[in-house]
């Protein structure tokens, strides 16, 4: 009897752990390089801790036409952070995988006007994301469709 109970408890624990690991792995499908619909930037989504972040890795117009220097976050409401280079800037932040191909609780930053919006990401297929930035409620927002890009791997790490 004792053996049966222990076996049952152990099996349930294993099942829960497996489910958790699977959930965690499912969330990692977000990782990769993506392109917004306007084709002006490319964003690499990666994981820090349990959350997902997207940083700009390519800009169609990488240099500021006025200065000729690499673009910086000159519209940031925090003046002290306006020298942060845009290439490398994390415009997607703090996304948590919620299951059912949805990542929530994150924000998206628009460097064109320095505004941060609430955001939800839905993966409509393995190569397509619906990124919805909104104000307060999802109804007051706009969806942009991002497409996954093929990335050519270089040398692997030591």
């Amino acid at each position, binding site marked *: 009897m004792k053996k049966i109970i222990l076996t049952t408890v152990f099996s349930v624990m294993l099942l829960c752990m497996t489910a958790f690991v699977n959930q965690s792995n499912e969330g990692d499908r977000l990782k990769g390089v993506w392109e917004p619909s306007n084709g002006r930037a490319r964003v690499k989504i990666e994981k820090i801790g349990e959350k997902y972040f997207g940083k700009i890795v390519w800009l169609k117009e990488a240099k500021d036409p006025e200065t000729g220097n690499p673009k910086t976050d000159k519209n940031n409401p925090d003046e002290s952070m306006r020298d942060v280079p845009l290439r490398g800037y994390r415009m997607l932040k703090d996304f948590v995988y919620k299951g059912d191909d949805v990542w929530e609780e994150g924000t998206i930053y628009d460097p064109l006007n320095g505004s941060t919006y609430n955001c939800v990401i839905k993966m409509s297929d393995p190569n397509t994301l619906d990124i919805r*930035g909104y104000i307060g409620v999802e*109804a007051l927002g706009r969806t942009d469709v991002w497409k996954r890009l093929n990335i050519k791997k270089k040398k692997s790490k030591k």
Partner: protein
Amino acid sequence: MFQLTGLGQVDSTSIYEEDEEDYSMYDDLDFAEDGAKRYCSPKIEGLSPAKLIYFGYDAMTPYSMSLDSLKFKDGQTEYNAEEKEVTLTHGIRLGCNIPVISKTSLVWQMGLNYWETRFSGVGTGNSNILMEEHSNTFRTLGINTTVFKPLDDKQFILFQGSADLNGDYTFSDIMSLSYLKYSAAILWGKRPTEKKQWAVGLARTYRVGELNYIPVILYNWTDAANKWGAEVLFPARAKIRRTINPRNMLLAGFELQGQSYRLYKNTTFRNEDLEIRRGEIRLGLEYQFSVKDFIWLSAQAGYRINYRYDVDRLENGNEIYRAFGLLSDEPYVMENSLSNPLYFNISLNLVSP
């Protein structure tokens, strides 16, 4: 001060399981999915923000209103001409534009708007029946839709349509929907860069105070430095924009406004099926700024030039389509004139991402 030096709980590792970045590796990439397309966006960089919800108030300084005598269809003339000083013309402006579909391949939004216009100084007991009508509130209740359909990464089709109920009705005695005024515009255009967009098309409009079919030109542009721009939907409006920063903008230009107000409340007019054809040109300056995040305030001031304020008769319930006099020279029932005041408008807006 306490030192925490290299504690055992630390873990300094790079997060990458793949490769480090060389930015050049992101230059020439293909989509992972075969057949994926890029579509042009309706957004133009640097444009003044689009309003999702707005609460506004509009007012004009005093002006004189000269109203004609009423010429009935049988040729009889009644009600003397009269002139009065309208001391204040004012009213609220409310509206919303909500995205219904907001995808890369299609943007569709629906909107509602409600405008009121009240006239002070007209009083009651006027000898001219139209003057007497101005003791009522003139209302516009409308529904509108906008569809932006990109054809590829450069071309698009834009459709705007609206239906408005304009008149001196009250909500307890609202006009029949058969008096709705329909406007629409359809344009084809191109978006060669993120800072420029143009389109041409045709519109059915009441902007000059009566029904007309006119060509329209859309042109939105921002300069390379994001300092200057133009926002044009000719002939409805044209403005030059000066961007102080992305949260502060100045605009200067003109806008055509106009409605056909059904004179509903007075039974005399109902029997005659009469409408005021109102058209005006507003020349002004506008300052828009972000109060906090997505809450913006816009303040406008300028000069209102009255284009038309005549009363027209419907023929068997149908409007007389004059086409600027080309198709009909039927005289108006009343040809009125208004002098030109200053106008002021303030609006609190929730703007779109």
